[in-house]
């Protein structure tokens, strides 16, 4: 429980804990953020056992349907 003020914000236990750990200074915050991302990548990789991949979509450039005449002219 904490104080409540006009703007309706309450300093909760959670906020106080965060302020004393992750939000203690810019370096702890930076390390926490990067670590979170790396952990998620590692866990996701472990869970799905798949690798990150490019988006694979049909590329109609290679099978464009134009009349042979036009195609000949384009080439």
């Amino acid at each position, binding site marked *: 429980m904490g104080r409540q003020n006009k703007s309706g914000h309450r300093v909760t236990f959670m906020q106080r804990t965060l302020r004393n750990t*992750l*939000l203690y*200074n*810019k370096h702890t*915050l*930076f390390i*926490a*953020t*990067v670590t*979170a*991302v*790396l952990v*998620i*990548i*590692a866990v*996701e*990789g472990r869970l799905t056992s798949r*690798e*990150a*991949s*490019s*988006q*694979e*979509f*049909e*590329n*109609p*450039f290679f099978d*464009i*349907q*134009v*009349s042979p*005449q*036009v195609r000949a*002219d*384009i080439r």
Partner: protein
Amino acid sequence: MSDSSIVTLAARRWRGLLMREIRENRSLMLYAPCLLVLVAILLGLRLFTLFSLERQTAAMDLLFNRFEGINALELAPLLTSAGALNLVFIVGIALSYLATSLYSDRRELSYFFWQSMPISDRATVMSKVATSVLVIPAIYLAILTLGSMILFISAAVYSFSLGVELNGLVELVSTMSIALGFIGLSAVTAMLWLLPAVGWILLFSAYATRVPLLWAIGGLVALSLLEEVVLSSNTIDTWIASRSSPWQYLVFSIDDLGARLFSYDMLFGALLGGILISGAILMRRFAD
């Protein structure tokens, strides 16, 4: 306060936030694309003048008459692919904009002015994200469209003076419009696909005390090296490689747009980008 006035206030505030980004980054967002398009036009003209009059006439004839009756939707991907380089420029402009976006106000100390306005850190950082994903592609596209129109009209006038008929004009104009639309869509899709990069750079932009872009790139290289040495794996490299090829961003039809935007990789990337962007938002409290 009525609902409509709340909406008006929010809309005005966002106009203010986005206009701020444009006005502060005129050279990167307006002048650089203009210069790029101008150079492209001049280069094209120079190449064109190398041809003999006969070949010039033939080329104009090809351009303005041979597409008569063709389905513009079929031809547009060809033109879109030809414009793929524009995506590289848009992404390049957006990422270099992001690198200084949370840094330059701290450096010039105007930070205190911005922070004395009733704008939350979240709104500030989200306005940078919106600028890179939507505003920069939109401005670039507008300039590209203008450049294409100038080129197209001069080509039409020139053809007319050569005595070339302009029968396929409608088809050509619609092909061009569709291709430009595809380039715009591709750019926005690319930026969304690159949300992890957007977040990464924003985090460094909020964190670094100098040259944030260099730190962002250096940090990535260091992490990948660390992974190689400690874990002898290369997940990070795979990650970077999977999002670097510009070809994957080219949108050729709106049919697969939904699949692109809501693919697993896109959403997972957005999650990581979201965490990094949150980090950048929280980092603002340490900006002084």
